[in-house]
């Protein structure tokens, strides 16, 4: 486990990364001896069970990280597991949302982001300079690391890692 943080809307967001776990798509999961409930109970007993069920329903499986596995052993389907305030699970991605300081085209944005190991996936036209970008150079770190780098670069209004979370209905 390690404490992580990034800046969102001028506030520091604290995350607890469950480094001993990974989340995998069901089809990529290994055979495991522990149940999902047991795995999470051992590593994050404060996380409500409903959170786990919601991810399971969406095809995610939590597994202990294989210490023997090479870093890319799980290929693209592997996700870091974070716990946010209130015990909410968030899965890491290699995507960030960034708003560049200048109104740049997608090509210009790519050129500006390349030194930080990022590539534009798509623009979002409801705000100027708003892009979804992927971290394509693992040597720069993960999306949380790169968010910090970009913010310190002076290039962006904001840079935030895109996290996968439960957004369900507000009914009983």
């Amino acid at each position: 486990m390690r404490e992580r943080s990034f800046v969102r809307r001028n506030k520091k967001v604290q995350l607890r990364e469950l480094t001993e776990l990974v989340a995998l798509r069901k089809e990529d999961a290994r055979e495991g001896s522990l149940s999902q409930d047991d795995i999470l109970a051992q590593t994050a007993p404060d996380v409500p069970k409903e959170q786990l069920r919601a991810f399971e329903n969406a095809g995610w499986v939590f597994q202990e990280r294989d210490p023997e596995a090479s870093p890319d052993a799980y290929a693209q389907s592997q996700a870091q597991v974070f716990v946010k305030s209130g015990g909410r699970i968030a899965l890491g991605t290699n995507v960030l949302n960034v708003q560049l300081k200048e109104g740049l085209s997608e090509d210009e944005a790519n050129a500006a982001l390349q030194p930080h190991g990022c590539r534009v996936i798509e623009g979002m036209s409801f705000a100027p300079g708003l892009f979804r970008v992927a971290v394509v150079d693992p040597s720069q770190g993960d999306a949380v690391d790169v968010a910090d780098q970009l913010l310190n670069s002076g290039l962006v209004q904001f840079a935030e890692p895109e996290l996968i979370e439960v957004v369900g209905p507000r009914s009983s």
Partner: protein
Amino acid sequence: MKWTFRMRGKEVTLTSVLGAVAVRPSEGARSRAGSRPRLVSQFGGSASDTSSGGRFGLDMPGRNRGLFERAGWLFIEPKPKVALAATTMRATVEDADAVEQVFVDRSGNMQVATDVLTVKLDPDMPEAEVKQRLKDDGLRNVRQIRFTPNTFEVRAATRRPLPELLHELQEKRHYVFAEPMLLQAITGRLKPKDPDFAQQWQHTNDGSSGGSAGADIRAEQAWDLSRGRGPNGPIRIAVIDNGMQVRHPDLKAGVVAGGSFRSGGGATANFVRYTPGAAGFPDAPHGTFCLGMAGARMNNKRGGCGSAPEADLIAIACLDDQIGTQATLARAVAYAADPTREDGSATAGSGADVIACSLGPNGADWDLTSVLDLAIRFAANQGRGGLGTPIFWAASNGHFEIERDEVSSHPDVIAVGRSDHNDMADGSAYGPKLEFLAPGVEVYNTTSGGKYRFWTGTSFAAPLAAGVGALVLGRNPNFTGQQVRERLRATCDKVGGVTYNADGHHDEYGYGRINAARAVQ
């Protein structure tokens, strides 16, 4: 073309239905014609008969046309001399008892002009002077109204346009008022005939469900004035949810557009435009219920209805397995306000007038990403061509400080809590950012599989309130999003037996329980 005049000290604006006139054929003409097409052809082209799919057949604006037609009026594209007669008082057309201009008021109700005016002169004016004034002003007394002094129904003494005469009279100081006499459909209070309407205490609570009579949103009174349709057509409500049965029999007639953002539990979502009637749209009971709360159809012999039963519905599904990123939710919000942001084939100006979303965790904390913040601000400020789209969001169901949920307590979001059938707050999030309550405990509406059920949640209070927002826009189409919010806030009932602060707010009740009837006045 607009016609503006004063009535009881306030400006009233009617919009004329260009190219159409109302004709009331004489009894003789009716019996001689023998058939409707022949009767119509006396006054206009038979193809223009509004009842047979002519130019105005199915899409002529104005509610209650059928009531006028049952009363003997025809709405036609007129021959030139008939068109001229309609705009000129005292002009006559052979075989017609009346030929009049057609207008639509701001609620979309049809109004037919007459050549009669109601005028009231200074109450102390002697009778002889009254007669002289009327004569000098080119008026002929039709009837004196006896219950108030110096008040008359009058006609123009000579041929002239009604707006011109009315304007002249309203400028003269010896008239207390001069008002046109317009034909309107004045029907009994609308009582929906939907078979399960009695279950929907949220609209009208008579106490039979075990709750308190009157603990409802006063929907029936509101529907007399607005059902979600304005002078320019239906108000559009976008409901954002994990999925919905868009082909539910009580919803499909209302769902005119939409799309889904499908991410398969991952980060990147693909947008798929919805073609009304097509299969394959993500379906989920919760979203189906939300869609119904806002706009299930009325008087279609099925289930109950929504709070804005004549509004158009835009169904937007995102995070269909309840897992995904706020970036996807942000795209859905921006799409609701302006579909061209996602859909290259969408028409500019086809965005929603009102947005409802009932997604979010039920725990206390929900942190807002910058990208969702930008999307909310975009919709609230640039939606509706810059007027702003009001965004209704379900507050958390847990009894937490609402500020811990940074989405529903966003300054541009209207956070809706839930009330029960006794008009009591029911334990949803509380605090200064709670806007108001709406019924959301064991309310009844549509669910997937073409079915209906009772269900509880702030999830259902929010789209119910969004429907009331649509009713307000039906009456006030030029309101900004902020004006809609202020109107709803100002017209809430101060329920719960608690003391509201000097601003009319209470942490558990917001500004009170929403009251649709007062909101649409």
